[in-house]
């Protein structure tokens, strides 16, 4: 088997050892031929090339939460195969760290979450690599691609830390750590290209550059619908599903995927490339005095200012990065002090947009400079609330409209307003599917599932249950839903009632925070049902959590820990391990935002 790293899990390893123990030489020969045959059948090109190439192999490790890193890793693996470079790709979670000392070339793609934290699946690898037990790695060449979000303070921190740790342990940097914001595609492509170039240069392959260029072109031209190549989906249905008395506006939107060939799984998201709210664009034009028709260069593309503001840059939110760049142009003590005080900064960023910044800190901006401040308008992701098994060539999403008053001005979220106010049924809007491998129904399909969701966090569970209903899989499902009021905010109420009646949903608990004096949230319902919850977990249930990250996810995590402690009669430490094990077994999956 591979000298690089062993991709077999423990059971497979044991089975293999068991098999080979008693094999005759003839038997070994036959089995090796059998396996070779399998490989040829599946990946003819790879297998053939592998036999003839003597290049140094590449190990590709990814640490992902939403699947982007995995996607890039797969692209890199494909590209290496095209070039005849031997590669092994795997998740940090499955990687045996002992193997590290034996590696020659390592590519790491890892994202960062919240306040500089690694994705759950990367936690162990991260601890190992940044810890004291990491061996000296003088023979290792490496490259790191760090994914992140510039609106967080510790941008790409996990990747940066991994890069730093590898460097410290004596490994050789193939290229400097690359950091990518939410619009990572270009950077990722360039990074892949650079990694390949370095590898080929090392192996002394003369054709390197031409090959790499060809592959890069191939990567870009892949005909999959993506963020860069969205599908224009017709809006089949758009209906506000919160009642009249609701303080919230939540829309159920049905989109057509007809003839697109797009497929998705419950747990995936739809990315929508929305326009900015026209009012805000207009106000910024007025404030800056820009000529809307003037052409500027944005990301190497010539567009006029009006269009750039509407379609290309993010203007509805403020980030640390924008402030940072802002004070490069204007000398403001006030803004500088913001950057020194996280709390103050947070409270300024919250509920403010670019127009506020322009108003609070006026400056005569040159268009080119101004647009350098801003990051590309990121797509908005919405958890899919349908299963293709049930709705076929449709995809449904559940959209909460962001709308609030601040400083006497109505503020609107870019995408929700785009959907709620600018789009009508029959319109076609640019979308793509954002696959999320870490929020999926259990592989063993009759595994019990506990689904906890607040507000639109209930969306993927509609998809889960549609899937189960299509497969006529009854019972063993428990939904805990929370929102503000029973009367107006009970999203998809009638559908849950039907699922309960038919038995596809076994149990449902609800928490409506504003229906009584004392606020009741989903975690209170979990606590009320803690004995049962623990029994479900003990019986192999998978636990899903979807919705608000800041409060709900934190509270649910805390409550779950308490429940496991209390019900299992174990220490906090042990309970943490219990949860860690759940996560490892993919029985605790989270999709929070």
């Amino acid at each position: 088997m591979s000298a690089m790293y062993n991709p077999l899990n423990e059971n497979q390893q044991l089975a293999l050892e068991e098999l080979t123990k008693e094999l005759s030489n003839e038997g070994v020969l036959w089995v090796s031929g059998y396996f070779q045959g399998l490989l040829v059948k599946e990946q003819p090109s790879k297998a053939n090339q592998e036999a003839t190439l003597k290049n140094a192999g590449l190990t590709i490790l990814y640490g992902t939460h939403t699947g982007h890193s995995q996607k890039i890793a797969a692209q890199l693996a494909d590209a290496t195969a095209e070039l005849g470079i031997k590669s092994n790709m795997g998740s940090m979670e499955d990687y045996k760290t002992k193997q590290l000392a034996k590696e020659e070339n390592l590519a790491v793609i890892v994202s960062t979450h919240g306040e500089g934290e690694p994705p759950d699946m990367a936690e162990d690898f991260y601890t190992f690599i940044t810890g004291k037990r990491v061996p000296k790695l003088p023979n290792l060449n490496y490259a790191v691609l760090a994914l992140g979000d510039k609106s967080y303070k510790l941008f790409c921190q996990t990747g940066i830390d991994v890069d730093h740790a590898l460097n410290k342990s004596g490994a050789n940097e193939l290229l400097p750590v690359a950091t990518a914001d939410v619009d990572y595609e270009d950077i990722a492509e360039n990074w892949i290209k650079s990694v390949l170039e370095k590898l080929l240069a090392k192996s002394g392959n003369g054709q390197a550059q031409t090959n790499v260029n060809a592959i890069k072109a191939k990567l870009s031209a892949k005909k999959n619908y993506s963020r860069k190549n969205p599908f224009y989906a017709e809006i089949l249905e758009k209906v506000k599903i919160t009642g009249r008395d609701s303080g919230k506006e939540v829309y159920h939107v049905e989109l057509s995927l007809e003839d697109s060939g797009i497929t998705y799984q419950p747990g995936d998201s739809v990315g929508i490339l929305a326009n900015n709210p026209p009012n805000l664009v207009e106000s910024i034009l007025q404030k800056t005095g820009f000529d809307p028709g003037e052409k500027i260069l944005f990301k190497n593309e010539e567009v006029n200012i009006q269009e750039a503001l509407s379609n290309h840059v993010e203007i509805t939110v403020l980030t640390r990065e924008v402030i940072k760049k802002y004070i490069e142009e204007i000398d403001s003590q006030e803004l500088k002090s913001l950057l020194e005080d996280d709390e103050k900064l947070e409270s300024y960023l919250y509920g403010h947009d670019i127009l506020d910044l322009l108003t609070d800190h006026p400056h005569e901006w040159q268009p080119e400079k101004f647009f350098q401040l801003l990051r590309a308008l990121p797509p908005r992701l919405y958890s899919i609330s349908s299963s293709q098994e049930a709705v076929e060539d449709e995809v449904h999403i559940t959209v909460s409209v962001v709308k609030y008053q601040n400083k006497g001005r109505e503020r609107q979220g870019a995408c929700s307003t785009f959907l709620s106010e600018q789009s009508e049924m029959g319109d076609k809007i640019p979308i793509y599917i954002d696959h999320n491998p870490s929020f999926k129904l259990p592989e063993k399909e009759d595994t019990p599932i506990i689904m906890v969701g607040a507000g639109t966090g209930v969306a993927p569970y509609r998809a889960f249950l549609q899937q189960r209903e299509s497969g006529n899989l009854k019972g063993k499902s428990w939904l805990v839903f929370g929102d503000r009021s029973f009367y107006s905010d009970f999203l998809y109420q009638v559908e849950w009632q039907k699922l309960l009646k038919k038995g596809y949903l076994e149990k449902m608990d609800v928490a409506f925070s504003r229906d009584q004096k004392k606020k009741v949230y989903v975690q209170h319902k979990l606590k009320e049902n803690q004995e049962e919850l623990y029994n479900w977990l003990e019986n192999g249930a998978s636990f899903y959590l979807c919705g608000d990250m800041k409060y709900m996810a934190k509270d649910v995590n805390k409550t779950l820990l308490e429940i496991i402690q209390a019900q299992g009669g174990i220490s906090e430490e042990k309970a943490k391990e219990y949860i860690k094990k759940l996560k490892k077994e993919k029985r605790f999956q989270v999709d929070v935002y």
Partner: protein
Amino acid sequence: MSDTINWEALSEVEKLKYESNYLRGTLVESLADPITGAIAPGDTQISKFHGIYQQFDRDLDKERKRQKLEPAYSFLIRVRMPGGVATTQQWLQMDTLSDKYANGTLKVTTRQTFQLHGVLKKNLKTTMKGINKALLDTIATCGDVNRNVMCHPNPAESSLYKEIVELAGKISEHLLPKTKAYHEIWLDKKLVDSSKIEVEPLYKDRYLPRKFKLGIALPPYNDVDIFSQDLGFIAIVEKSKIVGYNVAVGGGLGSTFAMPEAYPRLADVIGFCESNQVVDVAEKVVAVQRDHGDRKNRKQARLKYTIDRLGLEKFKDELHNYLGHNLEAPKKFSFSRNGDRLGWKQGADGKWSLTLFVEGGRVRDKDKFKLKTALKEIAELIDGQFILTANQNVIVANLSDIDKKVVNERLKANRVAPGKISGLRKNSIACVALNTCPLAFAEAERYLPTLVSKIETVLEEYNLTKEEIVIRMTGCPNGCGRPYLAEIGFVGKSIGHYNLYLGGSFNGDRLNTLYKETLTEEQILNELKPIIADYAKNKKTKEHFGDFVIRKAYVKAILKGSDFRH
């Protein structure tokens, strides 16, 4: 018993009642279910016996369906108040509850009681406890049992009032279901082991085949519409004393479009009994109906159909059997009107009563017209009673001279001083109908005031504004607003369309007759105009509108319920 019952042949409700464990059903589980604002379908029948109807806001029906939300379920709670009598404390409590848990209004019903509308499931129990805290209850105000007992309401009209209202209380008490389900479910009383005693000696295990209504009239006032009751007692007064009561049986106004066998019927006076026999007579009439009523078809189950099926004489014989003696021959009486006499009235004891017009029976504040506030303030200040009338009005009763002044002040301060109200409006009744009654085909309470205003314009033209004419509107043919006893009756057919019935008598002893079908407002006015013009020109002295249209043959008088047609 269940072995011998062929459930297939019976109406579904029969089995539900039988299996409800004396009106428990699965109400406790239904109340605890957090996924729906409704109760289980079977419990919607059982809850009626507890005074609770499940409804939903029909105005929002389509909208919520699109929103994937269940209908906006809420509940109507009907109070039991024999004779419509409430203390000031009880009024205040109902006022508070209506603001806190209902839609902020109090409905005065045509059976002299309060209804709260729009109570959410989660607030049901608290509201029920609140009602009971004021020493009121809601037992048997709906369902297949004897409902709220009615009786003439005005203490100032007669010194005999006290006697009849006490009798109303006694009958109501006597005919109550005896199950403890109500106390267990709503008031958290513990279940007592009752296996050895018969739970419902009168109603048995399936209660009555259908609802049962009972009232007491004090001639010459027929405000309780005695002929619309399943069982009516008409006080016979000799030398200023009640010597006994005439017994009237088989009234009932429920009917169905396109089903001539379901018709309104007026009660027959079948005899006379002494005062101390009234409770027993009531019990035995109930028992005959229990044993002889139709349990297969709920549209043929009321006492009126039992009587028409058996024949009046056979029914009387059976009743006499149950009583163990015969009723005496009925005595002479006469009624002058079925409406209320509005305004102040001083009783023989010197105490004052004010009969206050409440349009559509809806006690609420509307813009500057603050009726609800006024009555609340009055309840806080006076020492007296509030008595609800069968015509959906409120009597503030038993007041001293000082209290009378307070009442006038408060009414004036809240702009509800009794102003000039036309004789037509004074005599108007409307049922709730849309948006909460599930049976309604058309508006009633929300529309009748507008229609009355338009008819008033016509009356003004002919100088008939003061003429008292009984006008009633219901949203469906079931008859809650007693439309078939009106001189001008409207029954909703569809949104904006009504059947027009004419020729009821002013004192409530004659059914009206269908005049025109499925009219729009414009058509209604066009139909009424020439008749009103004719009435103005050709009416005899003191001739009522209902009598006039019969004399002039606009319609033919209906003499027998089964002749009635929609």
